[in-house]
């Protein structure tokens, strides 16, 4: 049998472990990665010439990061590695990539998409001001360049990433003005039965939360974000929230890190026409996968945070499972014992993922309360009021209709950052479930594509 052509998108934990598994089976996969170096976001490697230690960069996860990097360094001669390549489209058995203005169509028999996640965002009045970053962006600035997003930073949102990035900022010397968390302690307590499925991670999380208190950092739970203050010239100047007590709190700051846990980057799965289904617990549409990561489309496999937010350890397992599924489906022998062990580990990861989603819930209820002049789609400058008006005046009760009539999600990010919130605004305005309101259909290119792009010479 001819060697199957396998392409992996992403060189984070899922992609690297998938590549390792395929190489171990004697294949030479192609690894396409948008980053200039491997590691993905979580284990992002600093640019060449930067010399911070792993302990500084990855904290408690330093050993895992180093192991992943070492694995990848060993794999380099055994794979076709394409760093700095954007996978901008997938069609007819080809992955379309672009690198420095040069486009190629790479044929595949199997495609493993390990495209990672970005922040899940809920708008707040004023979030378009300069100095408001997503939590992920705030962390990348620190990890990649050793930069903080500001001197006095407010962390607003919820989720484990907020706890982690705030701790990293404090350690890096930034003033963490406050952690303003929309979740409540009882959310976390109620999620404990699920969270104990990974006691070590739970302990780290509790430790992180405790570290903020020990450092004397202001932590407020159960807040309702009200406004980020600022202006066009000076950017962010402050934040106000309503506390659980009903009292208003206003804090001065020069930057805000905002985020409500993560959402998978699913555009490639969408362009490959994989089926999606609504997850009621997290109120979002996900690609449908089986326990090994097979999508509804033969030959398309989905792994890591790009399909389920199970974190880096979960992604390593998912990457291996997806690669083993490719081997099985291509008629190669795959170690059944290893597969069942990985599946079992993955179930624990999945249970923990569900626990995290409960502990730090997506605050969908905030969408209904957004003032009409709150910008929802920052690329196009579409406000909640404009979005509501296409619902009420033009009968748009479905997301793609609301997009067509309002321009929400039609800008540079193509709704990757505002899509979930926009769906909640439409759901609240129509009194329908977001399951009915639907999701923005993914359209190529996955990221903006330069018109100077030309086909690479064959």
């Amino acid at each position, binding site marked *: 049998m001819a060697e199957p052509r396998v392409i992996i998108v992403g060189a984070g934990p899922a992609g690297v472990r998938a590549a390792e598994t395929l190489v171990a089976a004697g294949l030479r996969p192609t690894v396409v990665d948008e980053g200039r170096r491997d590691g993905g976001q979580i284990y992002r490697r600093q640019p060449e010439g930067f010399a911070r230690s792993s302990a500084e960069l990855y904290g408690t996860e330093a050993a895992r990061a180093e192991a992943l990097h070492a694995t990848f360094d060993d794999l380099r001669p055994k794979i076709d590695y394409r760093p700095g390549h954007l996978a901008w489209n997938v069609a007819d058995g080809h992955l379309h990539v672009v690198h420095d203005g040069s486009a190629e169509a790479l044929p595949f028999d199997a495609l493993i998409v390990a495209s990672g996640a970005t922040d899940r965002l809920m708008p707040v009045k004023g979030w378009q001001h300069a100095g408001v970053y997503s939590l992920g962006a705030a962390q990348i600035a620190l990890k990649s360049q050793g930069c903080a997003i500001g001197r006095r930073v407010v962390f607003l949102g919820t989720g484990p990433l907020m706890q982690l990035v705030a701790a990293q900022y404090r350690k890096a010397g930034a003033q963490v003005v406050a952690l303003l968390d929309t979740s409540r302690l009882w959310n976390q307590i109620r999620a404990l039965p699920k969270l104990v499925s990974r006691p070590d991670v739970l302990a780290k999380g509790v430790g992180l939360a405790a570290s903020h208190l020990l450092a004397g950092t202001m932590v407020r739970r159960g807040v309702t974000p009200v406004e980020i203050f600022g202006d066009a010239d000076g950017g962010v100047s402050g934040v106000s929230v309503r506390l659980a007590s009903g009292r208003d709190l206003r804090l001065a700051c020069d930057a805000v890190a905002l985020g409500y846990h993560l959402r998978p980057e699913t555009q490639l799965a969408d362009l490959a026409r994989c089926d999606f289904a609504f997850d009621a617990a997290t109120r979002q549409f996900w690609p449908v996968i089986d326990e090994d990561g097979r999508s509804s489309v033969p030959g398309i496999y989905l792994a890591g945070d790009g399909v389920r937010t199970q974190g880096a350890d979960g992604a390593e397992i998912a990457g291996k499972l997806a690669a083993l599924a490719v081997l099985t489906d291509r008629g190669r022998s795959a170690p059944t014992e290893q597969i069942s062990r990985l599946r079992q580990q993955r179930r624990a990861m999945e249970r923990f993922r569900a626990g995290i989603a409960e502990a730090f819930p997506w605050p969908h209820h905030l969408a209904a309360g957004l003032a009409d002049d709150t910008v929802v789609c920052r690329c196009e400058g579409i406000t909640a009021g404009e979005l509501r008006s296409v619902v009420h005046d033009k009968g748009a009760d479905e997301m793609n209709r609301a997009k*067509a009539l309002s321009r929400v999600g039609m800008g540079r990010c193509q709704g990757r950052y505002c899509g979930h919130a926009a769906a909640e605004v439409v759901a609240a305005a129509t009194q329908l479930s977001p399951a009915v309101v639907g999701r923005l259909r993914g359209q190529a290119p996955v990221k903006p594509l330069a018109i100077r*792009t030309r086909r690479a010479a064959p």
Partner: protein
Amino acid sequence: MSEPFRTDVIVVGGGIMGAAAAFFLRRRGKSVALIERALIGQQASGTNFGNVRRQGRFLRQLPLANRSRDIWGRLNELIGEDAEFLASGHLRVTYDDEMTARIETYARDALPYGLDLQIIGGNRLRERFPFLGPEVRAGSYAPHDGHANPRLAAPAFGRAARREGASVFERTEIVAVERDAGTFRVEAADGRVFRAEQLMIAAGAWGNRLSEQFGEPVPLVTHGPQMAVTEPIPYALEPVLGVSTTKLEETVYFRQVKRGNIVIGGAARGPASADTQRASVKPENTLLQFTQITRVVPALARLNIIRVWSGVESYLPDDIPIMGPSAKVPGLYYAFGFCGHGFQLGPGVGDVMAELISTGQTTTPIEPFAIARFASAPA
């Protein structure tokens, strides 16, 4: 079973043709049921380029295009909504002497139809449109053509029709269309029944499935337009630009909207399926467009596209639509298969069809579009 829903006219298909027809039928006092499988203006009407172009059309279509252009010019007061129509001018450029000779001939031939085209060449062309690339030889400028927003136009007509009293049924799939006891009977998937004396089929790429049931099949095929749009930049590219050429891959067109994005189309057609109701943009077509649009305006190379899209369009072998009365069934009318150039015509088609259905004749000639021209075609 519940009572049938009775109107004077049933319009099947809520694209721009059907929605505009419903609006103008109401203006003429007819009661109308407009039935759409999904949402108004979602397929070809909502996904096309948005050209409001008359130049370059089949000459005998110009009276209809002129009537439509007149409506575009007063659309806002007519339907009370803005579909972003902009009489920006339209420039078709050529790369060689042969095509330049053709646009000159066309300009002469179109003059009696009221089209005042200006043929501009050499330095004058570059003075006026300094962004054009070195390969461009000449241009045919239509000062009164322009563009509008396809996402908005058909839905706006649908709402205007509703305000005028039309009964608009969206998300209503039709399972049976027949004529019995002298009236038309249309049955929806959920069992609702509609009855009317007159029936207009404006079902785009699905029109043939209905005309076939009345013994009038047509050789309809489907293609998808290959569209793309850039990020917004300051408004600078006033006319709609297109290339006049006999080579399909050179046939690109683009326009800048007032808020800044440049909409791009052409160079190829893509796959579209009437069965799955889906069409796609082939990645290689997007790259082909990049090569071709930068021949017309080299500075476009500095921009990015942020989205591509397509939709299901219907084409006939002679590249001319089906429009007019049935040749076989009294009270039955057609307006579908607009071969990728229906958007500009939409308002005019609606107006003319309403005239035809309510008076039995039209003041604008539509004979070339008769379905009878395919009567001898094998079924």
